[in-house]
């Protein structure tokens, strides 16, 4: 019988890993739901962001959080450029899957050629920080991931719901020609949205670098579960990935605490199947 401490710590672990699923899924969900781009390269971008954080912190001596000052604008520009190219060549949603898969392989090769396939670990003061609440430990990098994921998700949700810019984006996503007829510059908004999605990948990269050992091949190990979080959360819904991510993360963690860890990967996909059966029309 697992102890209460074990269950409590596993619950916390689940919330933290779920927040990272949500953060990785946020940009993916927005670009898939609102731009009709199934952007597999989002994962590669997040890892590129993680490696850049590693490089700037380990070699140039930057504070890991300060790296966002450089990474966010660069990634925003990259995301916007990528969408411009997609629009320029009229890439369909299905083809975007293929094109971004190719882009993923290219980014992986780039990472490998610069940092080699050897594992890299960012040693920062944040890594050793942790808080103790009763018998439970709360590591700072994971807590920061949760705070960032929640903040960005709420920011994106509120922005889309309450600002004119957000309303225009939603209108363009719903029916671009009609939105354009009402004076919405759909092309410009798409570029902004794609840029934001890529910038979110940069933030996820920071969190990955602070909590995980990096290796280029690990790009692919996040794809399945984050896709599940995005689909369960609902495409284009900014709060969906973090909620679904935490549900998946907690389910996996508790499964690992009370049964064999090998059962954990089944949880996310079982949940996905259930959601697809029960509320497919909402996705």
């Amino acid at each position, binding site marked *: 019988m697992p102890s209460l401490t074990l269950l409590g710590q596993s619950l916390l672990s*689940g919330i933290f890993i779920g927040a990272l699923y949500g953060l990785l899924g946020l940009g993916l969900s927005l670009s898939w739901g609102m731009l009709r781009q199934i952007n597999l390269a989002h994962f590669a971008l997040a890892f590129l962001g993680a490696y850049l954080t590693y490089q700037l912190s380990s070699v140039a001596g930057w504070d890991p959080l300060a790296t966002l000052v450089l990474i966010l604008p660069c990634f925003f520009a990259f995301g916007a450029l990528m969408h411009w190219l997609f629009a320029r060549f009229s890439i369909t949603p299905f083809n975007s899957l293929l094109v971004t898969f190719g882009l993923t392989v290219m980014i992986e090769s780039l990472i490998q050629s610069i940092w*080699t396939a*050897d594992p890299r*670990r960012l040693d920062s003061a944040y890594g050793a920080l942790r808080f103790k609440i009763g018998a439970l430990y709360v590591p700072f990098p994971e807590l920061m991931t949760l705070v960032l994921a929640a903040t960005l998700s709420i920011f994106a949700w509120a922005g889309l719901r309450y600002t004119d810019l957000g309303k225009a984006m939603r209108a363009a996503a719903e029916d671009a020609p009609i939105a354009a007829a009402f004076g919405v510059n759909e092309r410009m908004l798409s570029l902004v949205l794609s840029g934001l999605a890529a910038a979110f990948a940069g933030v996820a990269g920071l969190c990955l670098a602070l909590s995980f050992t990096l290796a280029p*091949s690990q790009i692919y190990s996040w794809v399945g579960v984050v896709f599940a979080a995005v689909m369960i959360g609902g495409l284009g819904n900014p709060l969906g990935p973090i909620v679904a991510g935490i549900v998946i993360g907690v389910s*996996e963690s508790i499964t690992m605490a009370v049964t064999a*860890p090998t059962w954990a990967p089944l949880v996310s996909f079982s949940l996905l199947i259930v959601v697809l059966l029960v509320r497919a029309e909402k996705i």
Partner: protein
Amino acid sequence: MKPQRRALAFAGALLALGVAMQAAAAPSGKPIRIGSTLALTGPLSGTAIIHKITGEIYVELLNKKNGLLGRPVEWVLKDDQSKPDLARTLYEQLITVDKVDLIIGPYATPNIISAMGVAQRYGKVLVHHTMGIPSLAKYDMQFPAWSVGPNPETTVPNTVFDALAATPKAPKTIAIVTSKFPSVYLMSKGAQEVARKRGLKELLFLEWEFGNRDYGPIANRVKDAKPDFVWVGAIGLEGNELLDAMKKIDYKPPLHFYMYPAPGPLAKLPEANGALAASIFEQHPPYTNNPVAAEFVKIYNERAAKAGLADNSVETQAAASFSTWQVLETAINATKGLNDKAIAQWLKKNQVDTIQGRLRFDKTNNYGDDLMRVKQVQNGRWVTVWPKEWAAPGAKLITP
């Protein structure tokens, strides 16, 4: 002849003799082409680069001497992208299109098994580096250069438990946590069986799928079980990830062993101080008392640094790779030819001195002795601690 002219003539003669001697030592003629694949890209590339650097050094040293049978050696290397199916195709290509004279093994176990199938089909001898499941090596002309014996799942855990039993605080309870990566899983299941036979109380046995991302719950369960000793069946970075997760909940296992870790990154982790692993070679005496090993270590350290590897030291992977080439060179020189069957016959009947020790191939599936020893991270570097005759000078297994 005037004295000055005599001196000049003497110098000229010496020079000519030197040139002639050098010409005799330098390999000449049609190169002997040895083909192989390595995982130059993909998930196994982090380790395969070690085999690439080692192979390049060996061929370079070989050609600086007299090559093989007086002929230069050319290594035809292809990238199998860490994919066993591609390795199979490329070995076919090496034999039928590139028409290489000989082949050597790829990295790692699944790719070696693929190459073995092709070698068997064409009757080629196959010396390979690091095959983790000896029972799958059924081809009678394959020869393992990583000397782990035919039953490493029993012999390696026994060596580890012998080392622990010799310490003042021998563990009485054990937790086994393991990846389901085949070669690691085999060893962990073996460790479970051996631990039972030796009377250790098993508090926990957990498995996870290779590629698991979240080690937090596993760390929580190990902490909750409070074992004296943790056997971690972790390949590559999995051990680092688990230790990271343990650090986050302020837990450090009293004694912990890692099967097939990424050696450099693990040694550099502060929480890994005291961690144990198995090895056939570490770059300290008595291994480096062998001048061939010492020369290789020196060159490898430089090349690995130049290639930007996180860890530049020679350990199991590089030593097994170097031994592969040593086995092949010795057999070719002994048989004075490139005949696969003759080479295989010779290897079955003879022993080969390598930098990891003397290898023999006369037990089940051409395996020989288990030369795995126990090493420990001490002050950020690996040192062999067991058996005593292979321990680094002054080193002994440190227990908490």
